C-alpha cells in the first residue's frame, strides 16, 4: 500500500492551496471545459496560442486537491511551449499515470513527477488527468469540452 505522503506531496499541497494562473484569461483564443461526472470536478482551461506557441494559459474551476494541483502545474509546464512540445508533455504525463512499467521521461516531466504517486491510487487518476484532457480539447479546438468518464 503506497503511503499518503507519496500522494499528497508538499509541492502538490502547495499548488492546491495556492493554484498558479488561476483566473480567466481575457486574451484567450482557445478554451475548453472539462468535467468529471464521478466526483463533480469541473475545470475551464484558457489558452492564448499564437504561431503554434502557447503564449499564456490559465484555468478556473472546482475540484479536489489532485485535480487542482495538476491543473496548476499544467499551466506552469506548458506556458511558453510550442503546441508540439505541449503534446509531448501530455504524453509523458499520461504515460506516467497509466503505464506503471514504462520508463519515465524525467526531463519532460520535470516538476510533474511529483504527481507520479497518483498512479498507485487508480480511483484518482481521473482527477489528475482532467486538466490535461481539457488542454488537448482546447488545442484541438473542441470547445464543447471533455469528460473523464
Amino acid at each position, binding site marked *: *500500500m503506497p*503511503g*499518503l505522503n507519496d*500522494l*499528497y506531496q508538499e509541492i502538490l*499541497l502547495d499548488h492546491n492551496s495556492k493554484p498558479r494562473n488561476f483566473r480567466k484569461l481575457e486574451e484567450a483564443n482557445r478554451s475548453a471545459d472539462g468535467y468529471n461526472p*464521478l*466526483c*463533480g*470536478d*469541473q475545470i475551464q482551461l484558457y489558452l492564448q496560442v499564437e504561431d503554434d506557441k502557447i503564449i499564456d494559459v490559465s484555468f478556473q474551476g*472546482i*475540484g*479536489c*486537491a*489532485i485535480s*487542482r494541483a495538476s491543473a496548476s502545474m499544467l499551466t506552469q509546464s506548458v506556458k511558453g511551449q510550442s503546441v508540439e512540445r505541449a503534446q509531448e508533455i501530455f504524453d509523458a504525463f499520461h504515460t506516467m499515470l497509466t503505464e506503471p512499467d514504462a520508463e519515465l521521461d524525467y526531463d519532460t516531466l520535470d516538476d510533474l513527477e511529483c504527481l507520479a504517486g497518483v498512479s498507485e*491510487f487508480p*480511483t*484518482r487518476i481521473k*482527477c489528475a488527468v482532467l486538466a490535461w484532457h481539457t488542454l488537448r480539447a482546447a488545442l484541438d479546438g473542441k470547445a464543447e469540452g471533455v469528460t473523464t468518464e
Partner: protein
Amino acid sequence: MTTNVSGLDVARIREDFPVLHQMVNGKPLVYLDNAATTQKPQVVIDALVNYYTSDNSNVHRGVHTLSQRATEDFDMGRSKARQFLNAASDQEIIFVKGTTDGINLVAQSYARPNLGEGDDIIISTMEHHSNIIPWQVLCQEKGAHLRVIPISDAGELLIDEYEKMLTPRTKLVAITHVSNVLGTVNPIDQIVEIAHTRGVPVMVDGAQAVPHMAVDVQKLDCDFYVFSGHKIYGPTGIGVLYGKAELLDAMPPYQLGSEMIKSVTFEHTIYNDLPFKFEPGTPHIAGVIGMGVAIDYLNGIGLDRIDAYEHELLEYGMECLSGIGGVQLIGTAPGKSSVMSFVMDCAHPHDIGTILDTEGVAVRTGHHCAQPLMHRFGVPATARASLSFYNTKDEIDLLVKAIDRVIEVFS
C-alpha cells in the same frame, strides 16, 4: 456484549457478516457506505449458493420436482416481501431489478398514459437522480411541468410550499421516503393525505427507508412504493414495486414477453393477471429467494430494535463529527435516519475519501446521484458516512481518527 441501550448484541451480529472481518490497507475494515449498498449476512449468501447448488430450475413452468421447489421458494419470496411492506395481497408485489427499474415502470406504465400537456408532476429537491430523470424526460416529452418542493437549510421539506404546489393539473407526486444524502425522513403519511384530498396519487421511493424502519404501505396509504433488495442486506439486481391493485390492474404492461401472458395467437394476446402482467421473462429467482432470506434476517433482529440502535449510533456520530473543527454536517433534520453527510474546510470530499480509505474507513464521496441537492447546499460534493446496525461506536471513533488524519495532511 450488549453495551447499547437498544440491547442489540452487535458483536454477535457482526459474526453473521463475513465481509466485515478483513483488513483494508493494513487496517481493520470500517464499512460506513451502507446507503450505497449493505453487506450480506451468511444466511443470504448460503441461500444463493443452495439455490444454484440444489434447486436451480425455471419457475411456473415445469412439472418436475426441481421446478416445483424453485417455484415454491420463489412464491414464498413474494409473500415475505408482501408481509415486509404489509401490502394487502401478493398480487400487489411486482418484482423489478431495483428501485430505478420500479420508478421507470411507474413512469412509463402509470404516468405516461395519464399525463398531458400542461399537467404537473411533483418531486422534491432531495430526490436521487433516479427519481428525477424518469419524470423530467416524460414531462419534456409531454409538454408537462416538473414541480420541485423546496427544502429548509436543515433538509426538511417545506410542506406549506408543497400544499400550494398541488393543482387540478397535478397528476402524480413522486417523493423519497428517506434522503440518501441528508437522512431526512419525510412525513409520507402527511404528504399522501394532502395529495389524496385532491385526488392525486403518490409514489414513494423507499430505497433508503426500508433498511432502517418498519414500513406499512396500508398505513401510509401511498399508491406505489419502491425499494431495492441490495439495500436490505439482500442481493443486487432485485427489488420490489408495490402498487395498489386497482391502479396496477388498470395499467398497461411495461415490457412484453413470456410469463406475462395468458394466451397468445399471432393476432392477439391476453395478458396475465397481477403480478405476472408486469414480470415478463424468467425472473431473478435466486435474487427473490435471497431477498426473502434477508427479510427473514431483518425480522429476526427486529426493525424496531434496528431503528433504536441505529439512532443511538447516529446521535453519537453526529455529536463526534460536529465536535471536529472545520467539519460541517449537511442534513440536520430532527429524527433523521443514520446518514451523515459532511464537508470539510480544508479538503475536498474526494481527498477525504482517499485518506479515509488508507485508514480502512469506507465512505462514499461525490454528489451521491443528487446533483440538484448539492446545488441547493452550494457544495460540489460531500463525504457521506452511512450507518448500519452492524456498525459500532468504536468504528465511529475510527472515523473521527481518520478525519483527524485528513486535517493533519491538509494543514
